[in-house]
């Protein structure tokens, strides 16, 4: 038994997420990761935007900051830059991070500021009742794509890499142990790190797309999430419909707050 309760704000439970929502599994994986890393809870700050996923902040017993829709990364930039000693983790949704928040996302990646961003990707705007999101697959139904989505989805992870992130991974809630590892690695990484987590929304996405049951959604993850190494060995045909999971990018590059510190240090010498 893992003792989650010492890490959560028990008084706020049961949490607001629907039955079978994957978000709780992400939260648990995160808790195990910080436990494993031995991060002091007073030195961890969770920053979130608005959405079901962003409600995570209310449940973890660390410093938590639930901000405005799409702006979590901007707020987090302020927290981290002002006090680089803090571990700053952003929890956000596909809509929060890549629709309204897309600009902050790519710029934080460019700057390579040491934040860990967990994107709960459920392919939908859950909180507002199921509108199409930038990750909704083509053809999928949402309340604002009642005839099937005509827009192509973002590759969230690819975008982060192109923008300059130093660590990018993809995990899913079926493979929760692996998810914990990815989150651990992401937090350890000095630099902008993203973990895109596939986390099902039975209510707003599943119901509209013939996957109303949480179990069906979990099975779908089980069957379609393929570890990078295995994926690489697969043929083009075998890959179709499959999703690569694991560490996608892991590179070394100068980190923003560190670079700024060097600038300040050099001034002290000059001055």
């Amino acid at each position: 038994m893992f003792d989650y309760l010492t890490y959560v704000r028990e008084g706020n439970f049961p949490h607001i997420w629907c039955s079978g929502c994957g978000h709780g599994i992400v939260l648990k994986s995160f808790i195990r990761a910080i436990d494993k890393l031995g991060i002091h809870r007073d030195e961890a700050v969770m920053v979130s935007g608005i959405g079901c996923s962003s409600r995570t902040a209310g449940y973890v017993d660390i410093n938590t900051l639930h901000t405005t829709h799409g702006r979590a990364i901007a707020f987090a930039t302020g927290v981290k830059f002002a006090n680089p000693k803090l571990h700053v983790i952003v929890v956000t949704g596909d809509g929060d991070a890549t629709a309204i928040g897309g600009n902050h996302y790519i710029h934080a990646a460019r700057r390579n500021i040491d934040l860990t961003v967990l994107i709960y990707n459920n392919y939908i705007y859950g909180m507002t009742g199921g509108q199409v999101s930038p990750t909704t697959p083509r053809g999928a139904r949402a309340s604002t794509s009642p005839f099937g989505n005509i827009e192509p989805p973002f590759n969230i992870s690819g975008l982060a890499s192109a923008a300059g992130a130093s660590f990018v991974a993809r995990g899913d809630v079926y493979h929760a142990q692996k998810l914990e590892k990815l989150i651990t690695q992401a937090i350890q990484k000095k630099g902008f790190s993203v973990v895109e987590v596939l986390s099902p929304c039975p209510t707003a996405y599943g119901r509209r797309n013939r996957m109303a049951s949480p179990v069906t959604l979990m099975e779908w993850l089980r069957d379609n999430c393929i570890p990078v190494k295995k994926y690489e060995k697969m043929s083009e045909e075998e890959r179709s419909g499959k999703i690569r999971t694991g560490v996608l990018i892991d590179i070394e590059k100068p980190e923003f707050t560190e670079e700024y510190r060097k600038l300040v240090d050099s001034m002290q010498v000059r001055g």
Partner: protein
Amino acid sequence: MAEGQPASKELAIIRVNVEWCKGCEICVAFCPKDVLEMEGGKVTVARLEECTKCMLCELRCPDFAITVE
């Protein structure tokens, strides 16, 4: 069968917090030993003796509602 099994093998203690359990059936579906069942919209332990303490139910419960010791 008894041979080779540690004599001290204890039964798992599986606790369900029914206040928190939302009855998603994830634990039931993915228990490798079919230990769990649904009853009145909540999970219940049906075949405790089969439990291998693999912890998968605990791991995947989105609601912090089931623990295995």
